[in-house]
C-alpha cells in the first residue's frame, strides 16, 4: 500500500453506520481498537490485484474504484465502493492475493486492520463472523450482477464499460 499523508491517529468508538454497527458494545470496542487510521491522497492504490492480502481497509469518507486488469494492462472497473465499506475482506479471509485493485477517487481517511488481528477478532466474536458472512454474500451478489451485465449484454465488439 502506498504511504499515508498523515499516519495514525486514535480511533474513537462510534456506533455509526459502519459494517459492525449492530454488534454488542464490547465487540464494537474491540473492533475499534484494531483499527489504525490515516489520511491518503486521491489516486492512492490501497491494494493492487495480485498483491498478498495483509490487511482490510475501511474508507471513512470517500469513494474507491475497484478494477481488474488484463496482462496487456487494460483495466475494467468492477464497481465504485462507497464510504464505510470493508475492502479486501475476501482475500484477507481466504489468505489469497487480492482479486482487484482499489484506487481512491478522492482524498480520504482510511482505517486498516491487520489480517491476523481480524482473524482473531472473528474467532472471538461469533456475531461479527456472521456479519462478515453477510458482507461477503452481498459482495458476491454484486459480482454476479456484474457478470450478468458483462456476459449477457456484450456485442461482438466490446462496449465501453469502463474499459481503459
Amino acid at each position: 500500500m502506498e504511504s499515508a499523508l498523515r499516519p495514525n491517529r486514535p480511533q474513537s468508538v462510534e456506533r455509526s453506520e459502519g459494517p459492525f454497527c449492530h454488534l454488542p458494545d464490547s465487540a464494537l470496542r474491540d473492533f475499534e481498537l484494531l483499527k489504525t487510521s490515516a489520511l491518503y491522497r486521491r489516486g492512492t492504490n490501497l491494494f493492487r490485484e495480485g498483491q498478498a492480502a495483509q490487511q482490510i481497509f475501511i474508507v471513512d469518507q470517500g469513494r474507491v474504484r475497484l478494477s481488474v486488469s488484463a496482462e496487456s494492462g487494460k483495466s475494467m472497473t468492477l464497481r465504485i465502493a462507497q464510504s464505510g465499506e470493508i475492502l479486501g475482506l475476501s482475500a484477507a479471509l481466504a489468505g489469497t492475493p487480492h482479486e482487484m485493485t482499489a484506487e481512491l477517487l478522492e482524498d480520504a481517511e482510511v482505517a486498516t486492520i491487520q489480517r491476523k488481528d481480524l482473524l482473531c477478532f472473528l474467532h472471538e466474536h461469533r456475531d461479527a463472523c456472521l456479519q462478515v458472512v453477510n458482507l461477503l454474500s452481498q459482495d458476491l451478489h454484486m459480482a454476479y450482477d456484474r457478470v450478468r451485465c458483462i456476459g449477457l449484454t456484450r456485442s461482438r465488439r466490446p462496449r465501453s464499460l469502463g474499459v481503459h
Partner: protein
Amino acid sequence: MLSPYGLDIVESCLTCKTRTERLFCNLPAAALQSFENIKFASAYPKGAVLFVEGQSPRGIFVLCKGRVKMSICATNGKTLIVKIAEPGEVLGLSATVSGKPYELTAETVDPCQVNFVKREDFLRFLKEHSDACFRVAEQLSAKYNMACHEVRSLGLSHSAGEKLAKLLLDWSSRNGEATKQEPRVKIALTHEEIAQMIGTSRETVTRLFADLKKKQIVQSRGSTLIIRNKAALKQIASD
C-alpha cells in the same frame, strides 16, 4: 446403498470417506453432528434443476457427488454458464445467508448426491458454530474470487478464441494435470454449453475447436482433449 441413478449414496456425513478433503465438510465433531441433524440427503438424475435464478432461497445444497452447472439467464433467453460446481461446494450459499433470491440457476450435469439444509436451520447452525461460520466465509471468498476472475475473462478478453483458450488452460490446470507437458482435459460439456460459458455461439466454438485441431494445438480422443502445444494455447489466451 445404490440410488436409482447408479450413485453410491452416502447417508451420513459422519461416515463419509471424502469429508476431510473438502473445505466445508471438514467440520469439528460437534458441528458435524449438528449438521447431520439438519441435512436431508437426496439423489438427482442428470438434468435436474436444484434451484432457479430469481427464486427465493429455500436453503443450501451441499454437493456430495456429481457436478452442477451454474448459469445466469437474460430476459431474451440467452444463457451464460458461470461455472461447473464440483463436489464439496455449497450451492445457494450467498442467497441463503443474505435472504436475497438465488443469483444463479443450478442444474445437474451428472447424477448427483446433494445434502439440502433449510434456510432457517442453516442460519441457526451458523450462529451456534463459529467454525462452520468460518468455513462458509472461506467458501464465499473463493466464490467471489472466481466471480472476479469471470468478470476479468468476459470483460477484458478480445475474442472468443482468447476466452476459449483461457477456459481450456483453466481446466487443464486441475486434477493434477497442471505440470504435465501435454495435459488432458475431460470435456463433459457440449459445444453449446461451452459457448454459454464464454458468451459466444455454438458455431463459433465448433469452428474454434476445428482450428485448434488443424494447427495441432489440441487433439481429441473421445471426450478427452489433449493439449499438445500449451505454449501456443497460452499465446492465444494472452492475445
